């Protein structure tokens, strides 16, 4: 166990040096791009926001079913099949029909080439399920139908979220899908998390609709509140133009009224519709509705054919800027709930770094002193190994650009405390061997051999715990499991290669010395 070939010594030296160089690139600023990798600091250390958003798909499902009832009604009307009492309840469509039509309808829904009910050959499932409950027929989304609906709304939502965050201009945001109805947003070094939260919390569904007094409007009417939450107006459900028709929106100062406004320009279709509505509706009030609330409802005085206009509504410059931003980046397909938020201010992050570094330095110093007092020259060997071990650990974290969190730093300190274990096991074993064995070399050799199973067992148990943490833990905790896990490998390497190399050099020089350890 004590013999090292020249080649192996060279290999160990180069390997250790390599990682020391890599690790030190975190400390020294290298101008050229020779080695630009660095350990990433977690949000808890550099400050920033972690937001977990959940898409509320209920309105999407409701809307889809709404559209579907119309489609079903028209489809069977064309086929001369009578259906009646069609209604939506509990995310299901119910309708009645006579007995002879029942089978026909079910056949339409269960046909693999059905126009009404798309079939997914990959999943061997239709989008919709149909069931004859006896009293009526029930249609609802199948499991696959729901999954594809959720995935598509997630795809749309993540795109909109990305656009909104890009508009705010934070550096290196991390936007990821989680499951099929969640989006994870990580925003490092964010100054104003509240602004981003309020931007993400809005659906930004903009519509222009006429205010009406006619309760029997062909498209139906609804009562909507103004932004102040007090005044109400009856608004037609007919949408003149929506946010989809917008090409651009910008905050502006109206020089006449000295108010902040949002000016917008419309696409061709939007401009045409807007022109027509403003020409036929002179004198009427046009309500500008955002997420179910009326921003303002100006009276139309002139035909606007230019395809551009402006929204006023008592904005501050900030709120006008935000509204313009929301309109530019588009509406979310469904409302988003922030179900988890963790924000750390930059000064707390810096404090945590400082505290972590002090704890690391102190823990390191305490362990080193203890080992030196206890084992003298072999303590020194352990300590040098420990330092190299630390550099290799940092080097590996740098190489993989791992994220270092505060618990991660705790993991490194813990590694320092536990890394001596293997050396201690070996040294204690050697001491025992030396009681019966006078030959130093033989005693050292068998000390290494006999302690091996215990060391491997002991490290595997810790590694197993770290692996479980890695897969079950989230965020900062994951950082802990990474440093703890990687620390086990670097510890084993440094004990069996570096410490053993030093030990073998020392022992072969002092092979005849009594009381070597």
């Amino acid at each position: 166990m004590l013999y090292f070939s020249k080649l192996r010594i060279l290999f160990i030296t180069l390997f250790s040096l390599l990682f020391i160089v890599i690790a030190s690139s975190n400390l020294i600023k290298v101008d050229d791009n020779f080695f630009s990798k660095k350990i990433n600091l977690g949000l808890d250390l550099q400050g920033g926001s972690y937001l977990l958003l959940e898409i509320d798909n209920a309105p999407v499902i409701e809307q889809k079913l709404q559209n579907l009832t119309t489609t079903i009604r028209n489809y069977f009307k064309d086929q001369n099949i009578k259906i009646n009492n069609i209604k939506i309840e509990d995310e299901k469509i119910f309708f009645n029909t006579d007995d002879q039509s029942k089978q026909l309808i079910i056949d339409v829904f269960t046909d693999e080439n059905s126009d009404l009910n798309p079939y997914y050959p990959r999943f061997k499932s239709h989008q919709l399920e149909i069931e004859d409950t006896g009293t009526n027929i029930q249609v609802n989304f199948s499991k696959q139908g729901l999954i594809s609906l959720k995935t598509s709304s997630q795809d749309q939502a993540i795109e909109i979220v990305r656009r909104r965050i890009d508009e705010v201009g934070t550096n290196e945001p991390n936007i990821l899908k989680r499951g099929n109805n969640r989006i994870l947003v990580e925003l490092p070094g964010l100054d104003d998390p509240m602004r981003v939260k309020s931007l993400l919390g809005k659906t930004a569904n903009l519509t222009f609709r006429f205010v009406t007094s006619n309760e029997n409007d062909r498209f139906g009417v609804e009562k909507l509140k103004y932004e102040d939450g007090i005044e109400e107006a009856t608004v037609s459900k007919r949408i003149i133009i929506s946010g989809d028709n917008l090409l651009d929106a910008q905050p502006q100062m109206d020089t006449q009224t000295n108010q902040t406004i949002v000016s917008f320009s419309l696409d061709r279709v939007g401009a045409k519709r807007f022109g027509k509505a403003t020409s036929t509706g002179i004198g009427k009030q046009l309500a500008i509705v955002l997420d179910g609330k009326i921003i303002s409802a100006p009276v139309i005085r002139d035909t606007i054919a230019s395809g551009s206009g402006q929204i006023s509504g008592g904005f501050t410059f900030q709120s006008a800027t935000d509204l313009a931003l929301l309109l530019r980046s588009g509406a979310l397909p469904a409302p988003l709930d922030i179900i988890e938020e963790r924000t750390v201010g930059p000064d707390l992050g810096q404090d945590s770094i400082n505290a972590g570094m002090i704890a690391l330095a102190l823990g390191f110093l305490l362990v080193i002193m203890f080992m030196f007092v206890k084992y003298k020259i072999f303590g020194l060997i352990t300590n040098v190994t420990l330092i190299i071990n630390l550099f290799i650990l940092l080097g590996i974290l740098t190489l993989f650009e791992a994220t270092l969190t505060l618990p991660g730093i705790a993991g490194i300190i813990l590694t320092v405390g536990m890394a001596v274990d293997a050396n201690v096991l070996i040294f204690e074993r050697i001491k025992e061997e030396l009681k019966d064995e006078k030959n130093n070399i033989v005693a050292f050799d068998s000390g290494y051999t006999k302690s091996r199973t215990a060391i491997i067992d002991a490290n595997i148990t810790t590694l197993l715990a770290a692996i479980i943490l890695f897969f079950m833990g989230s965020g900062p905790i994951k950082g802990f499991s990474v440093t703890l896990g990687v620390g086990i490998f670097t510890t084993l390497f440094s004990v069996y290669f570096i410490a053993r190399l030093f030990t073998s050099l020392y022992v072969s020089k002092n092979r005849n010395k009594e009381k070597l350890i």
Partner: protein
Amino acid sequence: MIAFNKYYNHFNFISVLLITCSLALLVFKGLNFGIDFKGGTLIELRSTDTKINVSSLRDKFSQMNLGDVSVKKFGNESDYLVKFENKDNRKDIIEEIKTNLDKSFGNNFNFRRVENVGPKVSAELLKSGVIAISLSLAIMLFYIWIRFEWQFSLGAILALFHDVIVTLGVFSLFSLEINLSIIAAVLTIVGYSMNDTVVIFDRVRENLRKYSDIKIFELTNISINETLSRTIITSVTTLLALIAIYFFGGEILKGFSLAMILGVVFGTYSSIYIANTVLVRLRVSQKTVLREDDNS
């Protein structure tokens, strides 16, 4: 040589007592779950005005209609930790609090940390925490079952259960907060305690093969003594590192390092006084390990 085995019975009694008390505490008093597992909002505030004190701050917060609010000092004189349920999961609650505080105290607060965990997420985190701990215990059981004979597995697992239950018992007794980092600590304790037990068991097995005439009662004592200096040194270095984290690693790591310190102490104790006594009570002998060798 220290006669550890003289006290096997005494300490077995104490262990049973400790576990019973801890279980009673866990069942009747329960754990003080933080917002990670209970849901709610946490704010870490730093005031720049020395005139602001914890009671005036507490009064202000209780007027804000936030449900169950707790306001505590956090580490030093100017830092406060505020926790509340945020039952309706109001989105703009932080902004509201900021406006409220600015109104009463002037613009003197720095929001250093804000955490908000909705009820759905907290339930999921609790579930995954429980799964993680159970899974780690199961995997350790499996590992030791492969490496050792069943008597050893039983001893190791009992020691593990003891460490986890008693550590949680202490957290319950002093109403210390259980959050995500405590779960990480418990898992690390499981790894550490196992590590400690395995080293002694490894020696017991080696000695069982070597001496046919020594009874397990004596043999465990010999093994404990042979590995004692290692047990002490490793515990001491690990504790030194942990103490450094506890005192200098900042408030956020306090709970984590405390749980680890307790775990290391209990883990060291249980390796000696639980794991080994199980071997004695199950009358493990040379035959136990030799039979295994024949099979393989």
